[in-house]
């Protein structure tokens, strides 16, 4: 798979490049700002762009804005945002506009080389990857609560779903059987009043509801 990286800190850029190359990615371009990133995506059409949230010249949310542009104009390119600290509004912005091919991780997660590579692969393949801290923080901010009806176990399952895990991934993480996970998930759909339509769609809706990005039907 092909990737570009936009990161203004040289050390971290080199680190991420090494990790991705070791994981079998082909690095098309390495840039240090949003403008360069958009040019590189236009030129190479990569499978994924790994993007720092804060970049020159403003050091605020250049990366997020570039990510929204990329997801809108180049649907074939997934975006994984890297951030020094959790800015859940940015994560919410990103998720409100896209439900696939996006990710938001803290920079320190790059150190967990295998897991990071796995997350990049997942996002590049059209999945999602959310940092556990982002999930926790979005949970704090969410106040309207059909979610209070969930059992602690169901909550755990939903958190892992929000992190982008598949049923088998969730089962492995919680050390339960896959059928138990499926049972929990069905129970979650029922409690959140999600219509019995396409299963994947319901899954995304449940996660969005959980993150407070989408409002329950009124």
């Amino acid at each position, binding site marked *: 798979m092909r990737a570009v990286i936009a990161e203004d800190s040289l*050390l971290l850029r080199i*680190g991420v490049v090494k990790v991705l190359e*070791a994981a079998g990615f082909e690095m098309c371009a390495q840039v240090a700002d949003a403008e360069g990133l958009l040019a590189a995506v236009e030129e190479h059409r990569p499978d994924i762009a790994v993007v720092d949230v804060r970049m020159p010249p403003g050091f*605020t949310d250049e990366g997020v804005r570039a990510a929204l542009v990329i997801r809108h104009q180049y649907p074939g390119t997934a975006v994984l945002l890297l951030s020094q600290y*959790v*800015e*859940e509004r940015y994560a919410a912005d990103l998720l409100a506009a896209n439900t696939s091919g996006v990710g938001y991780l803290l920079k*320190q997660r790059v*150190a967990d080389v295998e897991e990071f590579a796995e997350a990049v692969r997942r996002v590049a393949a059209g999945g999602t990857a959310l940092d556990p801290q982002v999930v926790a923080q979005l949970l704090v901010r969410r106040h309207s609560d059909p979610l209070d009806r969930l059992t602690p176990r169901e909550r755990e399952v939903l958190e892992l779903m929000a992190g982008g895990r598949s049923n088998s991934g969730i089962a492995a993480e919680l050390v339960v059987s896959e059928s138990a996970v499926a049972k929990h998930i069905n129970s979650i759909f029922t409690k959140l009043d999600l219509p019995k339509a396409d299963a994947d769609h319901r899954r995304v809706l449940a996660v969005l509801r959980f993150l407070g990005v989408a409002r329950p039907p009124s």
Partner: protein
Amino acid sequence: MQLTTWLQLVPGRPFRRAGHRTALIAAGLPLHLAVVPLWLWLLGTFAALVPAVTPLPVLLTLVVTPLLTVGQRRRYRALVGKDLPRPPTPGPGRNWTWAVRRLTSRALWRQVCYHAVAGPLLAVLDLAVLAVWAAALVAASIYVWIWALPPQWRVTDLGYTTQAAYITAGGLALLFLGPRLTGALVRLDTRAAEVLLGPSRTEKLARRVADLAESRAGVLDAADAERRRIERDLHDGAQQRLVSLAVNLGLARATLGDLPADARKVIDEAHREAKEAIAELNDLVRGLHPAVLEDRGLDAALSGVAARLPIPVRVAVDLPRRPSPTVEAVAYFVVSEALTNVVKHARATRAEVTVHRIGETLLVVVADDGAGGADLAGAGGTGLAGLAKRVASVDGTFSCRSPAGGPTVITVELPCAP
């Protein structure tokens, strides 16, 4: 040549100082007497039964008062090198509001009091002291006068050895007394000028309080700026390096498959420790001054704090506008420290944080459903006492209600400018 320069020629230090002071008194005489004609005019209007004219001398007194005050300041400045403290000046405003504020200011009426009442009384004492000097000089030098004056002006029956000797002795005594009388009068005059022309005690205290508040705010701002600088340095330097180190170790662990077990163990250990160092450094940086607070404000920073705690915490921040960075920093540290206490001591299952702005007050409430019994002096009290001090540093109020059995509610009010 200036008078002060001439006075350098007077021999002997006590006498030179007395010379300066006498000059001060002499220069004070016309200034002290300046209002007397106006008083006489005022009395005259009453005596002549033309009260319609009465406001005129009063008005004139008000007009000359500032000029006389300037004169008095110059007198002290030029003759004894002393700057009389100034009363606070009324702020600028439209013409009539300024005039009203001026006319109703206590400073103006204290000045009038000095020039119109204290002045004439001091003038009498001025004259007395000047007379003592004159008498002292003439009497002490009586033999010179006897010798120098033409015969027809002499007092004929003055005995050279008896009366003239007594007069000389008296003159010398007065010369000895002169500096002391002068000193006493100067002290009296200075005291009156300081009290009536300078700021009152209340005004002095008000100015002192304003100065202290300003310098304290400066110190707090400087401390905050320093914390932010350290945070930025750590972020740009050590944090990036540590992440890079951890990435390299992680890569080594993942890619070097054929390592002996010992070497693999060492790399695993190093990788784990590098990640722990990153986590510790992140905590440290958050404790210093979290970047998210500066960038995104209290709401984002506090939900970050809440998300990292092991118990569910609801955070409700309702701020239409951001308070000053200093107030934000204090609010942040209060909440984050209070929540740390909740987790450490309260055995709570949940907590709630609300931040509201009511008028010019930022109201911060941290509540938990724990065991209670927290108090400022108690076992877990050092943290709370520190919080109270931090709140007091920006003139806030801190209260902690924590009956045994709970719940604990910490309420903090921080003043913030409109």
